[in-house]
C-alpha cells in the first residue's frame, strides 16, 4: 500500500492511498454524485483537465467492461474515491477498475473522506488540486496546486476532438456532428434515431460541415470554458438558419453564444444523474444526467430565443429553442450514460425538426 496525497489550492491536504497508476497529476477538482456509471464518467471527454471525485463511497463494484466506454480511453486527469473495490462482480465485466486505471495511466487516490472533500468544493467553489504518490510534502503539493493551469487557456477541446472525419450509421437522415469531445452514446442515439452521422473535428469550418449538404448539424458536448472556443462560435453563427441545429452541453453553450448570449462559470457545477429539469412546454420534470461547470445566462438571450428547460434545483438555464430558425439545444445530457433516460425524446425532436425543415423547404 502506497500512500498518496491530495492537496488543494486552498491549502487543504488529504492523506490516502495510491489507487490506479502511481504518479502526480493536477487539475480542477469536481465531484460527481452518480451512484453508478464510473466507467462512462472516466471516459467522458468533457472531464478532460479535471480530477473527478465520486461521492458514492464504493467504486469498482462491477468492474469495467468492453461496452461502457464513452470514448476510446479514460479522459479525466485523476480520480478520487473513498474505497476502491477490488473484487468485482458483473456478468459483463472484463476486468477490475483499478488495473484498468493503471493500464491507462490514470492516477488516483483512495481512502479519502470524499464527503468532506465534496463539502469543501461546494463551499469554496471549484478548486485546483494535485494528487501525488511521489511528492510526500503537503506544502509543496499545495504550491503545485496553485500553479496548476486553470481550465481556461488549455485548449482542452483540441486535445479531445477527433483528428479525422469519420462516419457512423447508415440511416436515411444525414447529420454532421461537430466533435468538441463527444460522448459515444450521443452518436449511438443519433444513429438509433435513423441518422447517418458524419463526425467532424472541432476545427471544421462551415464548408467542411456542409460538405455533403447534411440534413442537420449536431453540436456535441466537450470540456472547458465555452468562451475559449471562439472560432467554433463563428462557425456556428454561419450555420444558423441554414440547417437544423441541435446542441448538447458545450454544444448548447456554444449555440447560445453564437446567438449572442453570455455564459458564466458556476460555483461548482452540476455533475450527476439526479438533476431535476423542468420542460417548460410540457410542465413535466425530467431527471437528467449532467456534467457542466459553465451555464448560459438566460437574461442575455435574444428575444427570439425561448428558454425551454430550467433546472429546478437552482433555476439555471437548461435548454433553449430559436423561434425563427430551426435550432435548439440543452445543457444536460439526454444521451445519459450514465444517468436516466427521461430525455431521450430530444433525439426524436431533432429528427422531427429536420423533417419539418424538409417539408417547408
Amino acid at each position, binding site marked *: 500500500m502506497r500512500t498518496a496525497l491530495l492537496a488543494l489550492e486552498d491549502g487543504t491536504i488529504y492523506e490516502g492511498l495510491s489507487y490506479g497508476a502511481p504518479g502526480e497529476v493536477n487539475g480542477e477538482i469536481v465531484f460527481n454524485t452518480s451512484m453508478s456509471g464510473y466507467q462512462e464518467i472516466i471516459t467522458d471527454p468533457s472531464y478532460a483537465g479535471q480530477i473527478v471525485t465520486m461521492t458514492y463511497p464504493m467504486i469498482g463494484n462491477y468492474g469495467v467492461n468492453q461496452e461502457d466506454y464513452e470514448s476510446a480511453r479514460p479522459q479525466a486527469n485523476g480520480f478520487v474515491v473513498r474505497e476502491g473495490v477490488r473484487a468485482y462482480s458483473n*456478468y*459483463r465485466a472484463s476486468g477490475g477498475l483499478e488495473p484498468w486505471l493503471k493500464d491507462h495511466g490514470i492516477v488516483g487516490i483512495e481512502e479519502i*473522506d470524499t464527503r*468532506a472533500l*465534496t463539502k469543501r468544493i461546494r463551499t469554496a467553489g471549484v478548486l485546483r488540486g494535485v494528487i501525488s504518490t511521489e511528492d510526500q510534502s503537503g506544502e509543496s503539493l499545495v504550491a503545485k496546486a496553485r500553479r496548476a493551469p486553470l481550465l481556461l487557456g488549455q485548449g482542452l477541446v483540441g486535445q479531445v476532438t477527433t483528428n479525422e472525419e469519420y462516419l457512423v450509421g447508415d440511416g436515411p437522415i444525414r447529420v454532421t456532428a461537430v466533435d468538441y469531445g463527444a460522448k459515444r452514446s450521443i452518436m449511438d442515439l443519433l444513429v438509433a434515431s435513423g441518422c447517418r452521422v458524419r463526425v467532424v473535428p472541432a476545427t471544421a469550418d462551415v464548408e467542411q460541415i456542409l460538405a455533403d449538404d447534411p440534413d442537420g448539424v449536431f453540436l456535441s458536448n466537450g470540456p472547458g470554458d465555452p468562451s475559449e472556443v471562439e472560432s467554433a462560435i463563428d462557425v456556428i453563427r454561419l450555420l444558423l438558419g441554414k440547417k437544423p441545429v441541435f446542441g448538447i452541453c458545450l454544444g448548447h453553450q456554444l449555440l447560445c453564444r453564437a446567438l449572442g448570449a453570455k455564459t458564466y462559470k458556476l460555483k461548482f457545477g452540476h455533475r*450527476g444523474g439526479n438533476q*431535476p429539469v423542468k420542460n417548460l412546454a410540457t410542465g*413535466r420534470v425530467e431527471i437528467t444526467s449532467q456534467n457542466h461547470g459553465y451555464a448560459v445566462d438566460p437574461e442575455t438571450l435574444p428575444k427570439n430565443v425561448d428558454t425551454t428547460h430550467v433546472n429546478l*434545483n437552482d433555476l439555471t438555464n437548461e435548454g433553449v429553442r430559436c423561434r425563427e430558425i430551426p435550432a435548439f439545444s440543452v445543457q444536460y445530457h439526454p444521451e445519459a450514460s450514465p444517468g436516466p433516460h427521461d430525455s431521450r425524446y430530444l433525439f426524436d425532436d431533432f429528427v422531427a425538426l429536420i423533417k419539418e425543415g424538409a417539408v417547408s423547404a
Partner: protein
Amino acid sequence: MPKRTDIKKILLIGSGPIVIGQACEFDYSGTQACKVLRQDGYEIVLVNSNPATIMTDPEFADKTYIEPITPDIVTKIIAKERPDAILPTLGGQTALNTAVALADAGVLEKYGVEMIGAGIESIKKAEDRSLFKQAMEQIGCEVPFSGFAYSLEDADKLVEEIGFPVVIRPSFTMGGAGGGIAYNVKEFNEIIADGLMLSPTDEVLVEESVLGWKEYELEVMRDNNDNAVIVCSIENLDPMGVHTGDSITVAPAQTLTDKEYQEMRDAALSIMKEIGVATGGSNIQFAVDPATGRRVVIEMNPRVSRSSALASKATGFPIAKIAAQLAVGYTLDEIVNDITRETPACFEPSIDYVVVKMPRWTFEKFPDTDETLTTKMKSVGEAMAIGRTFKEALQKVIRSLEIGRFGLGADGQDDIVMSELERKLSVANQDRIFYIRAALVAGMSVEKISSLSGIDPWFVSQIAEIVAIEQELAGTSLVEFDHPLMRRAKRAGFSDVQLAHLSGSDELAVRSRRKELEVIPTFKTVDTCAAEFEAYTPYYYSTYETEDEVRESDRPKVMILGGGPNRIGQGIEFDYCCVHAAFALKEDDFETIMVNCNPETVSTDYDTSDRLYFEPLTFEDVMNIIDREQPVGVIVQFGGQTPLKLARALEEAGVQVLGTSPDSIDLAEDRRRFGALLEELGIPQADNGTARSYDEAMAVAGRIGYPLLVRPSYVLGGRAMELVYSAEMLEGYMVSAVNASPEHPILIDKFLEGAIEVDVDALCDGLQVFVAGVMEHIEEAGIHSGDSACAMPPFTLSDRTLVKIKDYTVQLAQAVNVVGLLNIQFAVKDEAVYVIEVNPRASRTVPFVSKAIGVPLAKNAARVMAGRLLKDLALDIPTHINYTSVKEAVLPFDRFPGVDTMLGPEMRSTGEVMGVADSFGVAYAKSQLASGLHLPAGGRIFISVCDKDKRSIQMVARQLADLDYKLAATKGTAAVIMKAGIAVDEVVKVTEGRPNVVDMIINNEVHLVINTPWGRGPRADGHQIRMTAAAHGITCVTTMSAAQALVQGLQAVRDDEITVKPLQQHYRDNAALSTAPATTAGMPEIVDLAAEKAGETIAK
C-alpha cells in the same frame, strides 16, 4: 397542480395490529400522512385498531376511530362521517384490502367516497396476478413463465409444463402468506391447497422458479402530471427464494452497472404508468439472472410498503409524507425537499454511504417450526445500519440486531457446527451470514461459497475482506495497536467488543486505548443529495472519517434511547413511549436526541426529535454519541429491555440516567433484594425461590409445592418460562430447557392457579403517584400478560381488592424510589393480592392506558424524569370512566404451522388491538374482531374442556344455547352439558375414530371452538383441534375466562349492538357525565406519598 379543494374530509385507514409482514412501518407512514394532510387543512378521520401507534393519538386526527378494520365496521364509520375521500395506500395490505372490499361492495359509490392515492383499477391490476401479468406483457416487460390455478387440477397441469422447482404465490395475501417453493409433488400439493384457501380470490400463481437470481427493488413515486422518480434502489444479499422481508438487503444497488440500472429504472417507470399509479408511491421487485443479465418483474405493491419505510430512512426522502401530498393533488415539483429546504422533492436521492438492513427472527419462541427461510416471511422485525462501506454497515447492523452479537463473528459468541457448514450455506437460514464467515475462516473459496448459497460473489468477497482483517488483528495485543491499525479496524466496522475479543482484552480497555490513539468516530449527515446542497436536518450516522458534521448547540440536551428492532416481547409500544418523550421534552425546550436503529419506526423519522442518530444501541455506539453531544441526561426506561440493559454501564461511565436510578431498577429486578423489600413492606408475594442447580430447584419445589412457574432470570417476554405441574416436568425443564448456573439462576414461583392477573401502570415523581390504569386480565394467571386480553376499568374485582392494589402500588413506587413510569403485575386469588413483579420502566400497556383514560402517560413521565412535578403538570384526569377498553393480543400462529396455539407463560404475540365501547361485551367483541377473529352470528360451536372447567362450562353452554347456537362436544364435556338440560351433539375425539371434530372443522361444520387444555401433559387431541382450527381460520378459545367474555361478545354481535365512536367523542361524553361515580376504586387517581418518606425520596 396545487392541492385539491374539492375534497375536505379524508378517511385514512391504518394497518391494525403488528403482525409478521406488517409492522410499525405503517404507523410511521400513517403518522406522516396525518401530519401533513392536517397541516394542509384537511379534516382527517382515522381508523386503526392498534392503540400502540402514534397515529391513534387523539391529536393526530380530527376523529380517531380505534375500531376493527373490517369492511363492516369501516362502512359504519363512512356512514357516520361521510368523508369525501378514502386514502388506503398508507396502511399496508390491510388498508388496501379493506378499501377494495368497500369498493366491491358498492359502499364507496353509495356514500360518494373517492378513493385517492391509487384507484381501484390500479390496485387490482397490480395485486391480481393474472391482470398484472397481462399488463406486463402489454408493455414488453418480461415476467417469469407462469400460469394461474383455481384448483388442484389446474395446478397439476401447470407444474407438468413448468417443471420443479416452482414458486407458488396466492393472490391478495400479505407478506407471502400461503406461498412457497415446491421441489416435489407432495410439497406442491400442500402449498397449493394452502394458497387456494388463503387467497381471498381462490387464485394462485404457479411460476417458473427464478431461485438464485439476484433480487432488486425500486421505490418509485409518481404524480398526476406523469413526473416519476426512483427514490431508492435496493439489492438483496439473499438471492431469489427468500422473502425480501427475510433477506439482508443493501441500498443502493451494488452490482449493477449504470446501463442495467437505468434499464431497470425505465421498466419501473413504464410499469407505474401502465398500472396507473398516478398519485403516490410503489415498490417494484425485479429478478436478474446473474449469468446473462436477463431481467424479469416479480411484483409490484401499489402502496407504501415496508421497503418504502426502509428507503425513506436510507435516503432521508420522506416517501409516506410525499405520497400523501401527491394523493391530494400536489405534483412532485411543488413539494420542497425538507432536508435541503431549497431544492424540490422531484429528484432522485443520491447517497454517499451504504445501508444494510437485516431481519430479526424469533424462532426460539416457536421451537416446533421449520427455520428455513422461504418466500413466506417469518421475521418479526429488522434493524438498519449506515456506514461508509458495506463492511462497516454490515458489522453495524449485526450489532444493532439485539441478538447478543457485536459484529460478524470474532466477538467470542461464535457457535458454528462445522459439520453443518455446507447445508447452512445452501439452505437459507437466520445464521447463514455467520456460516459464510466460518466457511471463509475454514478456507473455503469465495466461488464455492457463492455457488452453494447463490449469494453474489461481490458480497462474499466483501465478507472475505472483513475476515482478512479479523485474521490480521487476531492475537495483536492492545498495546501493539497503533493509530493506522486501529483506524483500519474501525473503518471496517469492528466493534470494541470484537477488538477486545481479538486482542484478549476487554471492551473498556479497547475504548480507552482507542481514544488514546485518537481513533474516534465522526458523525456524517444523511442529506438525500451526497453533500451537493447544504442539509438542515440533523440526521446522523457514525463512521471513521476526517470530518465531523454535528452542529453545535448551547441548549440542554436530553438523549432518548430507542428500542431497536421489533421482536416478540418488545414491539411498537416502546417506540411509542420514546416518541412521546421526544415530543414532550421538545415542548419543554430541551434539545432532544433520539438514538435508534429500527427503520420502521416513528422515532427514526427525522422530524420526531431535534437530532436523530441512526445507530446501534450498544454501549460503545451510545457512548460515542454521548461523548460528542454531552447531554444533560439520558432516558433508558422507555425503549424496553434494549436500552435498560445499558443503564448500569452508562451510569458507571458517568452518564446521568434520568428518572428512576439504575440501582432502583436493579432493586426491582433482583429477586433477593426485591423479596426482602416486599417482606419489609408486608406485601405478599407467591412463595418462591431461586435455583442455581438442579438440586436447588428440587429443594425449592419441595418447599413450596406444585404447580410452579419457572423461568430464567433477567428475561423479557417470558422467554423460556413454563408452568410445571410435577417433579418429572421440572426435571425435564432443568435438563432440556435451560442451563442453570450460578451466573444464570432459575426463578421458581408458586403458581397461583385460577388467580386473576392485574396490571397497573403508574407514574411517580417522588411526591405523588398517578395510578393511571388498573387492568384486569381476562385470561387467568399463568398466561403471559403480553398474550392476555385485559380490560379497563376492571370488571370483576371488588372495591376492597382495588383499594389494596392501589395501596400496594403507592407503597412500592415509594419504596423503589421511582421517578417516572412504573408497572406492577398482581395476582388476585380469593381476595388476597400478591405482587408478581414490579418494573420501574415503561411497560407494554402504556399506550393502551393512555388511550383508555385520555391522558398521555409517556409524555408526562418524560417531563417528570426531566425534573417536573405532577402537581405542576396539571393533568386532566377523569375521575370516572364510563366506557370499557379491552386490549387483546394478536398471535402469529398462521406463520408457524405446527406450533400449538395454546397460550402459556411465554409471550408469543406480535401485536395488540383495542376495542372501546360503552359495555364490556361490545368492547370485547370489537377487540376480537380487530384481532382478526370471526365471531359467527350463528352456527355450531364445538366445546371440549378439561375437568377443572367442566363446572363453569354449564353456564357458558346455557348462554350459547340461549343465543341459538348449536352445540357439539366431546363425550365428557357433552355429558356435563346435557346434565344441565342443554341440547348438544356428541362428537368423537380424534383418537376415537372418524368422522371426528377435526373432520368437522375441515368440512366447515364448526364455526367456533372452545377448547381448554390442562397443564402441558399429553395433548394430542387438543393440539390437533387447535391447529386445525387455526389453519382454517376458526376462532379457538383456549381459556374458560375468555370463553365467558366471548359469550358477551357474541351476544353483542348477534344483537348488532356494535356501533362506532371516535376516541375524542368518548372523552367528551365521559367528561360531560354529571352523575357522581358510585365508586372510584378502579379509576385513575393521583395519590400523595407518605409525607416523611416522600421527603426522603426527594433527598435521595
